[in-house]
């Protein structure tokens, strides 16, 4: 086949010229002995970005409308805020784990802890009147559970160690923040934040004892400029 308008050869499979779109003529090609190297037939898939973005905007607008209605009717923010916070938790705890691979377990744990911590803070504020129960109980327990999970995953799978080191270090920093908050506000107990910090340090020590070189190299690679 040939395009007479562009004066170029085309493969036998072409109905239209890819350059100008005109009908291909059934002429003999000028360059002899060429075979078309086929590409797969592709079904065009646009990025799912717009759909996700649409859902996110719809969710934010729905939450905002709920809060506004709640405040207008009751002069307080109650169930709508809870619903707004619960949505990411449901997503993080019940939906995302089924669509992620095990290699991301650490990063999802961190995100789950973050969402759940915010939810706990909100519930404690609404239910008890201050954040003390979440800061002295719920959040440190959550951190302890995630730290133990990270330790177990790194003991089972060698390759998870490198991520576990970083996430455990992040957990230790979060524990220290909790301890500082507990020290500043006198009505928050220190026991559980200290226990969480202890678990983080013990977990890091176990990994360091088992894989000292990996531990040192991971820290060096992450923080060496």
């Amino acid at each position, binding site marked *: 086949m040939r*395009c007479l308008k*562009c*004066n*170029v*050869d*085309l*493969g036998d*499979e*072409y*109905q*239209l*010229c*890819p*350059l*100008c*779109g005109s009908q291909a003529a059934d002429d003999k*090609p*000028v*360059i002899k002995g*060429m*075979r*078309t*190297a*086929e*590409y*797969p037939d*592709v079904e*065009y*898939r*646009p*990025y799912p*970005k717009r759909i996700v973005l649409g859902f996110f905007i719809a969710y934010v607008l729905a939450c905002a409308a709920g809060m506004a209605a709640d405040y207008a009717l009751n002069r307080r923010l109650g169930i709508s805020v809870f619903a707004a916070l619960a949505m990411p938790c449901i997503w993080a705890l019940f939906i995302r784990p089924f669509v992620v*691979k095990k*290699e991301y377990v650490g990063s999802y744990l961190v995100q789950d802890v973050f969402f759940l911590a915010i939810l706990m803070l909100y519930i404690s504020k609404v239910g008890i009147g201050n954040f003390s129960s979440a800061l002295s109980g719920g959040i440190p327990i959550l951190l302890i559970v995630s730290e133990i999970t990270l330790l177990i995953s790194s003991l089972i799978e*060698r*390759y998870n160690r*490198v991520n576990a080191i970083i996430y455990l270090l992040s957990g230790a920093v979060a524990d220290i923040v909790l301890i500082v908050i507990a020290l500043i506000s006198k009505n928050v107990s220190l026991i559980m934040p200290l226990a969480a910090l202890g678990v983080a340090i013990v977990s890091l020590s176990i990994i360091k004892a088992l*894989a000292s*070189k*990996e531990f040192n*190299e991971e820290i060096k*690679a*992450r*923080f*060496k*400029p």
Partner: protein
Amino acid sequence: MIKNFQNVKEMNNVCVPARFPLDNAATIYPACRTRNWNNVYRFAIIFKDEINPVFLQQAVDDFYSRMPTYFVRLRTGAFWYYFERIRHSKVVVQEDYYPCRAVNLFSSEKPCFRVMYYKRRLSLECFHGVADGGASLIFIKSIAARYLQLLGHDIEISGDLLDCNDSFSKAEFEDSFKRHAVKVKGVKRKEASSLQYDADPIPNYYKVIHGLIPVEDLKAISREYRITITEYLVAVLLYAFYLDAPKPCKKPIKVSVPISLRNSFESSSLRNFSLYTNIGFDAPKKDDYTFEEILEEIRGKLREGMEKEALLKAFSKNVGDAGNPFVRFMPNAIKRHVLNFGFRKIGQNQFIASITNLGIAKMPEAAMRYIDRFEVLLGETPIKHIAIALISDGKNMNISFTSNAARTNVQRDFFTFLSQKGVKVRIECNDKESWLRQ
């Protein structure tokens, strides 16, 4: 049987450590990536027969220890990105979508490249941070040679082909920029911005138009003007962009030409060792340019840009900037956005498109009996919606236009200009139905 590395200690036993920094040219690529895009290019070899995926996988497997800098994933450090070697995994997949789609850089299971097959085409798609085109061309040719050996053909490993039984050397791992860089002062990067290609990009779409041209035809026509084939094709491309540009043209039109530094500086590195030079003409200077006038404007500019002294100054400046303590110790979270801003607002504005010539892809005569031709594709960027890559097997030059837009004005002007000059052109496209859908 592939020997998997079980721990860092075993990985470090060969000359490539388990984790290593990116080379000087690669630092920009992770920084400028987006959620759906990273800088990926493709090399392809079209065989005469359909590809056997089992032997192809075996051929790639055989290079796991030989090419450790490819089997890596990207990781984020506090101050910079770095590569981490990964355990062996199956990287050969059947091609099922448009070329050059983003690679998962951070996966612990898959490396920053993929090998694909579809009927007669063997493709290697690689993230540019891992290696440049020169190194990847050697890699894919070596895979092809090994594949043919596994099929039972007697292929001698010669020239720049790599033997999978050899060990990786320190010279292949080196960051050649650092070795050759010297201290320079007063080198400026600032350039006038270029006219930009006006197109409506289609997200996640990638149109490829190949133009196959006999090298003899190109040689004859470039000899007429006493210039090289690359210079001639750069001039034709600039002319095609000029025809497509709104008149009067208010900005210069420049294209970016990547240059392999391996020709000018001694290097066996299988990582990045290339640089770019921008070539063009001052379109607003005159109302109506002819092709010959554009050719005269750019004559010699490419050779000037490829002079050893100019190249040395340019990459020494890059190495010097990267070594600046302020840059080195800037947290990665901030540095990434600074580099991204520079890439989008300064670097990408200086040219309208990239055109790269990989030259002649040489393989042993015994292997060429089973190979039809070579292809190279440059991935588009979020800003540049068209790119051009050239490669030849000695007989035919394969000129590949890649674009994420539907319009084909520049491609049409480029190839019809050549055909009007008496050059024989054969066109192939990955999206034959695109005109039917419009």
